[in-house]
Structure formats: structure tokens, C-alpha cells
């Protein structure tokens, strides 16, 4: 028994003949009936759903799937196994859902391979294991399970505004019919029949949709610029590089609902009159690439892509290009360079890609999330969209939340909600720890302090307080995180990922990294100039940051100093502690630890004193030894050496 992935041939014929011709308008009953079957409103045999995404894969979802297959085979059950995407509850992966005939669909979390037999034993006997159960879907017609919360009432879902993620976790991402059954491709059918490119641009301009890739540029305006450049060919590029080292929402969106992205791409391409669209996706994301490839293949199969889409006379081809891995290649001009087969070094703007982009043609680069917004805007109308969010920032925003939070998740919240919603959805920090900050936007973002969590989410709304909204990667930081170390990490990242073209970015990041490294290390020699260097460096930091912002060629360099500047402002005491007191309160900067010997445990075996590289340990054999603080360089060798666990650090 293998999981059901695709549609069957007759199903495809049925949908093509009975549904697709009517998609542009209200569906006739016959079509609705066909689709209802694919929504699994009522099932005849039990269905087991397993969420398979990159994140659940690491959690062992493939083993879970094997275990379920084995269970069904061994018990000779008449049941179906279906792959779905992710609900965003990453910490509960692998998630398994079961829908029995007549009963509501119910979800269980952390179902590892060993948990499969007891779970299925129970469920097929009408018993839902309470320790695993997460939620059930609400339904008017089906019998609910007792004592299991409804999905919509779960705070995790109730506090979100899931527009892009409407289908995520629910539908089979490898079956286009399910997407259509949940309302997909109606926007495309409607648009191709009713709107011209110009109208689509106008509608998107009116919707005030802003790019979700980090820049926040008005999407309609960008499209208009490209549309107005006379050319016989234009190009749309979907930026799925997602190179922020702590963000994964674009990836999970594609893995959970790839057809939404495809529909969005077709609509965006139509709006700018492009005949070719490229998806630039990181080579490492193999499952994501597989899903989007499969989605494209199916869209071609259904006549929704390729030559003469839905008989409208509009043709489009989508090509996937795998990014060979470089953070700068998220920047649009570098991305274009990379697509052209060159080193991904950004080029000077102007000319903007909308005039002179890929292959010299007018090109629009849009983020996955931006593109995924398009179908709903066109289907539900501009008013529907502008009603979401705030004055300046419309719609919703996806975030991926990780780090030291209790739960790792990916979520979608309405603009205008306070940042604390993100914190709450991730269920705060682990018990016993204190919340320190929420880092928003990765290497070009800033840490947000607990007091600032009340600010509403939005572009201008946050910018007012010097916080860039960024692309949506969020890390929750607690007191085990050292801010110096974190900024150092980001600077290290920038220094390696900078393309190296311009001086401020290449040399500046290198310099700043060294300064930060210097303050988180001890002088290995006691030369006085080391201390002097440290002070000189710190004085330089702010000037350097300013010059980097002012003069760098591309966004990478211009924003690279943001985490540092904000951390210096909000967590100044922590920096000062490193510089003056030579202490790291989180004990992350290992060099700054000072070691002590517990007099009660020390047997005076002399082992540590012999190993200490600076001869900082003194004592008489067979009585407790002690460490001379001034001499200790924090290497930790004594701690590794001690057989009696007598060494500890503060």
C-alpha cells in the first residue's frame, strides 16, 4: 500500500471536462459535486493523512509513513494514505490525521514510527489517544470526537488570519484537483476572461500590495514599470531563494500549497505580459523543488499552463532554475546575474531590472509570498484585500518562528496585529527561562525588545520605530542567548556571504566581525595593545556601520549593520559587560568564562595544574587547588581534565 499522491486518469478527464470550463463564474451543481468528492467532505473508507514537508522529514515523517503502510498492509485494512502539507505546527511534526467514515478529521502530533501502531489501534477502535491528539476539524454533518478541541478554536489557529495558508496542511500538495476543489484557479479563469494586463496591474496597484521579500516595494507599481517598457518579451522571476538563514516560510508554503504559487505566477506574468516565468529556488531544497516541479507538470496537464491557457490566447512557460547557493542571490540583480550563468554579484541600479533585466529584457522579480497573494486579490476583489491590515500595510504576513521559543512554527498574521502575537503563537520561551528579545528579519533585521512587542506589524508602522519588517524570519531569544555572539554570528554570515564586490561591504563586514570577535575573546597574550585594539575597534563600530549603510552597492551591505546598531542601542549593557568586565552573562562566549575549583570536590591530584596552558592553577598536592583569575584564559582544559567534576565556571 503506497500513499496516494496523484489523481487518476479518469478523474483528470472528469475535471477537465466538467469543471474547468466553468471556473470563471459560479460553478454549476454538477461541477460542485465533482469537486466535493475531492474535498473529502464525506469519505467511504478511512483516510490517513501524513504531513510530509522538509521539517517533518527531519522529524521522521518518512519512517512514520512506512510504519503506517506496514500497519495497513498487515491488518489488511481498506484505507487510504494521503500526503498533505504542513499546518505550521512544526514542533508537533510528524503530524498524522485520520478521517473515519462519518467522523470528523482529527489530527495527532509527534507521531513517530513507534507511536503509529498504538495510535491506529486506538483510532480504528474509536479511541483517540489523548496524549497525541491535537485538534479536530469542525463539520456540520459529521460526528465530532469527544474531548478534542476544534481546529478553529485552537488559539494557534484562532489568532492567525490564514489567507495564503488556507489550504496548508489540509490539501494534498501533489494533487492539483484538490487545489481546484478548494477554490483554486478560479482567479485565473476569471482574470483571463475578464481583465486585460493593464486592468490586473491597476487592481494590484489599488490593492496596495507590497513586496514581501523584504523591500516592501509596491508590487503594482513595479509591474506597471515593466509593462510600460516597450519590449516583445518580458520575464517574471519568482524569487524562492529564501536565503535568510533562519527563515523557512516560503519553502513550507510551496511544499504545502504549490498550486497557489503557480496560479499566482501565471497571473503575475499575465499582468506584465511575460511569456516566460522563472522560479529560482535553492538547490538544497529538494522536496520543495520536487513539489513545485510536480505542480508545474500537473498545471500543464490540465491546460492551465503552456500554450493558449484556458483558450484565452495567452501562453506562458514556467522554468525552474536551481540556485547554487549564495545569500546575495536573493537580491534581484544578483539573482538575474546568477540566472544568466555569472557570478551572483549585484549590478548597479539604474538600470532597474524592470527596464533591463534578465537577458536585457524587462524583468519583474517577486517574492513567493507576494505572488501567492495575487490569486485571492483578483478573486475576492480589491476591497476584500484592503480591508485586511492597516492604513499603510494591507493584507497578511507570514512568519517562521524558531530559536529558543517553546514551539517552532510558521504562521500568518494580519498586518496591524502587535508583534506579541508572534511571541504568543510560538508559545513563549521555555519554562524557567526569561524572554530577552525577538529577532525579526535575519541578518538584515533587528532584535525587538519585550517592551517593543506592542508595536503593530506593518511596514511603516514598524519603520517608525526603526524596525524593518523584513522577510519574516523570526527568532525568539531567551537569556541563554548572548547578544554579542548573535550579532557576531550575523556579521560572520555577512562577511562570508557578501559578494565581495564593493569595499564597504566586503571590508567593512570583515572589520566589524573582527572587532566583535575581539571583544568576545580574551587576549591570548597579555600584550597591552590587545586591549587598546579592542577599545579602538569599539569606537569604530558606529562609524563603520554608518559608512556601510551609506555607500554599499546593494541591500546586503546597506542593511548588514542593522542587527549590530540595534543591539548596541537596546542591549548596550551586555556589550559593555563584554568589553569592560570581560564577562558573558549567557556563558556563550566561552573565552570569557573564568573557572573555579570546588574546594569540596578537589582531591589535589594536580592533573589540571599540569595541563593548564597559562599555568594559572596553583596549590599543594593532595589539598584543593585554585585558579588565578587574572591568568585564566577560559580555555576550559581544566574542566575537561578533571575526573572529579570539581571545576566549574561562572
Amino acid at each position, binding site marked *: 500500500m503506497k500513499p496516494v499522491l496523484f489523481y487518476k486518469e479518469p478523474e483528470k478527464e472528469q475535471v477537465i471536462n466538467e469543471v474547468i470550463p466553468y471556473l470563471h463564474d459560479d460553478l454549476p451543481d454538477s461541477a460542485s459535486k465533482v469537486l466535493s468528492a475531492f474535498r473529502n467532505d464525506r469519505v467511504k473508507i478511512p483516510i490517513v493523512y501524513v504531513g510530509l514537508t522538509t521539517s517533518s522529514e527531519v522529524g521522521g515523517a518518512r519512517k512514520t509513513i512506512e510504519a503506517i503502510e506496514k500497519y495497513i498492509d498487515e491488518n489488511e485494512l481498506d484505507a487510504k494514505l494521503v500526503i498533505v502539507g504542513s499546518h505550521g505546527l512544526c514542533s508537533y511534526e510528524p503530524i498524522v490525521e485520520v478521517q473515519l467514515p462519518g467522523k470528523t478529521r482529527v489530527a495527532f502530533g509527534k507521531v513517530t514510527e513507534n507511536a503509529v501502531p498504538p495510535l491506529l489501534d486506538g483510532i480504528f477502535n474509536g479511541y483517540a489517544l489523548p496524549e497525541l491528539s491535537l485538534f479536530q476539524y469542525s463539520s456540520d454533518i459529521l460526528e465530532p470526537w469527544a474531548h478534542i478541541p476544534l481546529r478553529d478554536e485552537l488559539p494557534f489557529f484562532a489568532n492567525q488570519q490564514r489567507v495564503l495558508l488556507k489550504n496548508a496542511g489540509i490539501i494534498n500538495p501533489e494533487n492539483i484537483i484538490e487545489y481546484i476543489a478548494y477554490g483554486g484557479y478560479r482567479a485565473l479563469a476569471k482574470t483571463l476572461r475578464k481583465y486585460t494586463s493593464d486592468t490586473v496591474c491597476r487592481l494590484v496597484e489599488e490593492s496596495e500590495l507590497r513586496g514581501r521579500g523584504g523591500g516592501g516595494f509596491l508590487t503594482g507599481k513595479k509591474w506597471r514599470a515593466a509593462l510600460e517598457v516597450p519590449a516583445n518579451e518580458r520575464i517574471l522571476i519568482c524569487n524562492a531563494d529564501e536565503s*535568510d538563514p533562519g527563515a523557512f516560510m516560503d519553502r513550507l508554503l510551496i511544499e504545502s500549497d504549490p498550486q497557489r504559487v503557480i496560479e499566482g505566477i501565471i497571473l503575475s506574468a499575465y499582468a506584465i505580459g511575460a511569456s516566460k516565468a522563472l522560479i529560482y529556488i535553492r*538547490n538544497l*531544497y529538494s522536496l520543495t523543488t520536487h513539489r513545485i516541479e510536480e505542480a508545474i507538470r500537473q498545471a500543464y496537464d490540465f491546460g492551465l499552463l503552456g500554450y493558449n491557457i484556458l483558450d484565452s490566447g495567452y501562453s506562458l512557460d514556467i522554468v525552474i532554475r536551481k540556485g547554487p547557493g*549564495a*545569500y546575495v542571490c536573493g537580491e534581484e540583480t544578483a539573482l538575474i546575474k546568477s540566472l544568466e*550563468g555569472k557570478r551572483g554579484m549585484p549590478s548597479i541600479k539604474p538600470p532597474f531590472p524592470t527596464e533591463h533585466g534578465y537577458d536585457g529584457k524587462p524583468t519583474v522579480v517577486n517574492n513567493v509570498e507576494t505572488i501567492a497573494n495575487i490569486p485571492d486579490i483578483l478573486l475576492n476583489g480589491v476591497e476584500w484585500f484592503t480591508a485586511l491590515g492597516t492604513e499603510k500595510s494591507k493584507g497578511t504576513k507570514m512568519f*517562521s518562528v*524558531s530559536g529558543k521559543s517553546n514551539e517552532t512554527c510558521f504562521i500568518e498574521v494580519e498586518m496591524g496585529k502587535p508583534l506579541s502575537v508572534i511571541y504568543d503563537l510560538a508559545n513563549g520561551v521555555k519554562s524557567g527561562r526569561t524572554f530577552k528579545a525577538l529577532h525579526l528579519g535575519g541578518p538584515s533585521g533587528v532584535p525587538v525588545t519585550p517592551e517593543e512587542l506592542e508595536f503593530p506589524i506593518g511596514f511603516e508602522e514598524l519603520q517608525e520605530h526603526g524596525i524593518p519588517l523584513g522577510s519574516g524570519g523570526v527568532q525568539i531569544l531567551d537569556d541563554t542567548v548572548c547578544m554579542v555572539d548573535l550579532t557576531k554570528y550575523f556579521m560572520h554570515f555577512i562577511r562570508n556571504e557578501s559578494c565581495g564586490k564593493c569595499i564597504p561591504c566586503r571590508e567593512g563586514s570583515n572589520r566589524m566581525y573582527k572587532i566583535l570577535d575581539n571583544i568576545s575573546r580574551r587576549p591570548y597574550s597579555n600584550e597591552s595593545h590587545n586591549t587598546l585594539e579592542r577599545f579602538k575597534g569599539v569606537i569604530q563600530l558606529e562609524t563603520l556601520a554608518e559608512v556601510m549603510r551609506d555607500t554599499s552597492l546593494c541591500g546586503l551591505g546597506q542593511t548588514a549593520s542593522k542587527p549590530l546598531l540595534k543591539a548596541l542601542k537596546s542591549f548596550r549593557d551586555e556589550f559593555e559587560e563584554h568589553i569592560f568586565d570581560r564577562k558573558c552573562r549567557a556563558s556563550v562566549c566561552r573565552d570569557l568564562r573564568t573557572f573555579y575549583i570546588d574546594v569540596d570536590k578537589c582531591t589535589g591530584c594536580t592533573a589540571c595544574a599540569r595541563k593548564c596552558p597559562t599555568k594559572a592553577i596553583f596549590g599543594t598536592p593532595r589539598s584543593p587547588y585554585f585558579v588565578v583569575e587574572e591568568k585564566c584564559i577560559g580555555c576550559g582544559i581544566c574542566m575537561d581534565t578533571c575526573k572529579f567534576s570539581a571545576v566549574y565556571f561562572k
Partner: protein
Amino acid sequence: MEKIIDEVLEQNGHAGMDSLIPILQEIQDRIGCLTEEVIIRVSEHLNVPTSKIYGLATFYNQFRFEKKGKYHIRICNGTSCRLNGSKWLIEYIEKNLKIKNGETSRNGIFSLEVVNCMGACEFGPVISINDQFYKTQDPDSLKELLDELSNEE
């Protein structure tokens, strides 16, 4: 190896500069790494100077000029994994296997690749060996795992 290069180049008969990366990707996928010969052949095929290909290949993380080890270790050093201690895992490997990011150990058994965010932050620090994921949280359990692997040799 020559046959593989021939095949890939044949598939990309009239390719232009924009196929350079896909061609290199495919060759590397099949051979395991890029070599001087690959560069020469691709350069002749696309009529691009070898220096441009070398410059391009060294720019991106994906391309390597050393064969992968028998066990290819990928460690996530994304922000979240870093916060959860990937630094110590990398440090452990660098110190004990004496390889750095992108290198292969002298005996060809281990190779290391440090990547950014594998998209599974909840299980961080994430580590994969030959595309199989392990939930290895600290250097000690990593040591056990690696010892086991090298004992198999």
C-alpha cells in the same frame, strides 16, 4: 567520468551561457565534484573562458572541487540551529576530523558541508549524513555517531 560529461553536454546541445549553472550542477550531481577536466570541456562546449567557469564555481556554495567523503556530513548553521548549539558541533568536527567546511578528510571517509537553515529548526541543531537526518543535539552524541561510522570502516 568522460562519458558522463559527454552525455550531459550532448543533452545541452545548443546551450548558451545561461545553461552554465545547470550543466555544472548536473555534472556535479553525477560525478560528485567538479574537476579541471569538467571545466575544460564545459568551456569548450559553451565557448566561455575557463576562468569564468572557475570564478563562478567558487562563488557558489554548491560547487566543490574535492570529492565528497563516504559520509557526507551536512550541518545546519542557520540562526536557530546556531542558537541551539550548532557551533559546538562544527567545532567538534573541525577539531577531531580535521576538516573544514567544503573539505574532505584525508582518508576520504568524511566530508563536511555547513549550510544555512534546512527548514527544520524545531529539531536543531540539524545534522544530516548522506541525506539521512539525525537529531544530534550535542558534541557527545555526535562523537558516538561518528565513532560508530568510522568503526564500520
